[in-house]
């Protein structure tokens, strides 16, 4: 045991031991996993113990790098060859650590099965989904292909795929991301496993789809008495789904307990900080109704002081009948100093809209004016001058920094483009100042991006965006790849610099809680069209359209009691909607 005092008091686990019936389906005892890497051995899991009983859902939460996925893979015996496993991992009485390959093969898919994060890569793109599910069935049971096929259709129906008789012949690319994840789940439950390991099963999905998948998993777990180990970083998902929670930090469990205890009354310092950093969705109860406020404060979008304005912009990809309307008559403006959020589900066109604003995608019709000038109508030089007033932060902290440049060179790049006469000394001084402005030490300039963490990289990205003192910052999902605590720090830095430097911000995000916190106005997009727009405090609290209402209702909040109520409300609303719509 190390010096971190784990708050794993007997009083939380002991009563559960009595409540839950039978022996634990997953029993991990003093698990140590060490990876041998080029830079020496790395201990990913350090003396971890946990139990999952039949019918119970244990959520393993923690930030990236805490070792939670390693535990999940260890339970399936799927760790890579450079991992050294010590301790005991028993699945249904079989010790996975010492089991032979044939035993493990038999175990996987029948006693225990796994649902991975990315449905797109978990399915074979060239095999029909029905065949993939049937393969899992026939691998473990001696049934005829006709029986397997009937079972497959049955499974697809159970996981809520409409028209399973024809979908069974579909290829994965013909299904949406949510449907693919349903197929993955169908494969996982095909042989009625006693343990289901779900590693971030909903992270790649939209909130509305996430809510449906969680509902599905919950029903399956309750119906069949399957034990579920849920690995996630999302506290809302935990509150929605889990019975018990284990909080992991640097390879160890620092706190375990029932979901109510851990999320509502956390005892360990780390859990408290983690929960404090989670952005919380505000509801009508948090906002007193202010009538008439919207009309007073929201001027028209055609105002001349707008930093950027899109007027009736349409973007069409492809030609002929297969053309896709990525954007359709989209108009909005960002005024000096304000922050406008662009929200919507994936595929709604929010990133396309941001790219049109940046001049990276030419609109098929409509106009974009940047600082009052039409981008498309200005010459190359004039356009460059205008573009000097824009800063960009994109989503992926790895892909947005050139790995072959040092941090200093990356931040200096806009200066090299737009301030060519600047002396080397001045440039270095400015880079140092900008680094300090985003709360990174100036000495970091000589480092390579790969030496930095995700949060540090995003701040380097931000420093590059701000080094020219832009009038507009376009941020496309700047924090969605980051842990909540890091997200909070990055958003704070952006907010502070915005009030100091006064730039406007176009903030693209799928996280409604973050947008509520961060943006003054919001534009809700749905399949390329603007669904509604207005002040954040109005639109995201008292939405006028069903679509926004559904989006908001699907966001899980990190409070198990509130979330239970929200879930019931949402299901009731859905049921009511279905009966009235007659679907």
């Amino acid at each position, binding site marked *: 045991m190390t010096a971190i005092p784990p708050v794993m008091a007997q009083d939380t686990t002991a009563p559960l031991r009595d409540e839950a019936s039978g022996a634990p389906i997953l029993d991990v005892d003093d698990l140590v996993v060490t990876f041998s890497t080029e830079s020496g051995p790395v201990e990913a899991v350090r003396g971890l113990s946990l139990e999952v009983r039949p019918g119970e859902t244990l959520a393993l939460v923690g930030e990236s790098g805490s070792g939670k996925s390693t535990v999940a893979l260890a339970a399936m015996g799927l760790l890579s060859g450079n991992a050294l496993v010590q301790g005991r991992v028993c699945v249904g009485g079989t010790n996975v650590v010492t089991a032979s390959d044939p035993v493990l093969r038999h175990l996987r898919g029948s006693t225990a099965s796994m649902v991975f994060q990315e449905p797109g890569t978990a399915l074979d793109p060239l095999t029909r989904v029905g065949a993939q599910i049937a393969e899992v069935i026939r691998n473990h049971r001696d049934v005829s292909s006709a029986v397997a096929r009937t079972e497959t259709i049955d499974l697809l129906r159970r996981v809520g795929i409409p028209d399973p008789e024809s979908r069974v012949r579909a290829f994965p690319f013909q299904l949406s991301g949510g449907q693919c994840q349903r197929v993955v789940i169908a494969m996982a439950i095909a042989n009625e496993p006693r343990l289901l390991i779900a590693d971030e099963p909903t992270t790649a999905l939209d909130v509305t789809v996430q809510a449906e998948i969680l509902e599905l998993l919950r029903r399956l777990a309750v119906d069949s008495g399957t034990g579920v180990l849920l690995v996630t970083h999302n506290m809302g998902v935990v509150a929605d789904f889990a019975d018990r929670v284990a909080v992991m930090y640097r390879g160890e469990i620092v706190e375990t307990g029932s979901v109510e205890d851990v999320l509502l009354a956390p005892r360990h310092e780390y859990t408290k900080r983690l929960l404090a950093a989670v952005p919380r969705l505000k509801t009508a109860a948090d906002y007193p109704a202010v009538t008439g406020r919207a009309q007073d404060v929201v001027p028209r979008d055609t105002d001349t002081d707008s930093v950027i304005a899109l007027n009736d912009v349409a973007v069409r990809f492809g030609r002929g009948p297969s053309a896709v309307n990525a954007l359709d008559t989209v108009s909005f403006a960002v005024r000096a100093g304000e922050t406008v959020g662009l929200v919507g589900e994936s595929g709604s066109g929010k990133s396309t809209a941001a790219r049109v604003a940046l001049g990276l995608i030419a609109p098929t019709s409509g106009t974009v004016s940047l600082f009052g000038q039409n981008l498309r109508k200005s010459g190359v030089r004039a356009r460059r001058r205008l573009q000097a007033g824009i800063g960009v932060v994109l989503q992926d902290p790895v*892909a947005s920094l*050139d790995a072959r440049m040092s941090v200093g060179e990356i931040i200096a790049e806009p200066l090299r483009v737009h301030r060519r006469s600047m002396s080397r000394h001045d440039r270095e001084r400015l880079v140092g100042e900008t680094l300090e402005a985003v709360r990174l030490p100036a000495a970091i300039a000589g480092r390579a991006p790969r030496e930095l*963490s995700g949060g540090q990289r995003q701040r380097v990205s931000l420093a590059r965006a701000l080094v020219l003192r832009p009038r507009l910052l376009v941020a496309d999902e700047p924090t969605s790849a980051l842990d909540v605590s890091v997200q909070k720090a990055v958003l704070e830095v952006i907010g502070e610099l915005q009030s100091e430097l006064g730039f406007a911000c176009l903030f693209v995000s799928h996280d409604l809680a973050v947008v509520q916190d961060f943006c003054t106005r919001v534009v809700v997009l749905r399949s390329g069209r603007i669904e509604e727009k207005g002040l954040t405090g109005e639109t995201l609290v008292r939405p006028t359209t069903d679509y926004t209402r559904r989006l908001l209702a699907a966001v899980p909040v990190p409070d198990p009691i509130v979330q239970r109520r929200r879930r019931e409300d949402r299901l009731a609303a859905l049921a009511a909607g279905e009966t009235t719509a007659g679907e």
Partner: protein
Amino acid sequence: MSAVIQPGKAEFSAQVAGPTGSRLAIARFSRNRLAVVGLAVVVFFVLFCFLGPLVYHTDQLHTALSEANQGPSGSHLLGTDAVGHDELGRLMYGGKVSLIVGLAAGLLATVIGTVWGAVAGYVGGWVDAVMMRVVDAGIAIPALFILLVISAISTPDTFALVIILGFVSWLVPSRLIRAETLSLKNRDYVLTLRAIGGSHTRAITRHVLPNSVSTIVVAATFQVADAILLVAYVSYLGLGVQPPATDWGGMLSAGLTAVYSGRWWLILPSGLAVILVVCAFNAIGDGLRDVFDVRGR
């Protein structure tokens, strides 16, 4: 390990500790045993061909018919050829030409291929279509055929040989670099540069090319190996460098008449040298791929 845990601060302590870039690169390269052997072979032959003649003096200009066709002996370690040139000295002398032409032609091919592929991939659209059809057409015509035609028209000197070999073998690297460029030009950092008004030249020279350096270097080593082999082909057919100058391929060609008379020393050394150097460059290419292939880990 202290009990103080701060999620926000944790990221600062998560610095990568361990060997630095170049040391790691050397470690990765040396893990590929074959690549190390390849490097040793190349270094050996470079020393042998360029420094060898300083220690081992021979006359490769004048014929000495009195000493023709001698087997290996104390005075001629690898014997002599049909006009009395010392074979060991000739191996060094010919190796110089083979290595210089091979390296120069391989690098030229890589440079042409890189520029062509990078422009085609970055610009895209019909420019890309036209440029790549040119490459397809070029690949459809066998390089050896072009070489034979050119050699029939005129007798190229070393410099001309480099240019000709370079211009017939840039096609494959251009395809590799184009594929790399296609993925790199849509990376977030290139988009960011373009969004703030950076030029295309900057995007290509500062981002696309430096990031395809792994592909370029690996392609270059294979190109060098190919070029050395191509020089040997051409000279073997009697169309390469002209006597009294020679290269390994030319030596093979000259020794061919002696195959049935048992004078193995005219064929074996030069033949082995070509095989060893070509294999060595290929092995180095493999090793370099391991060094650069960081993202795959």
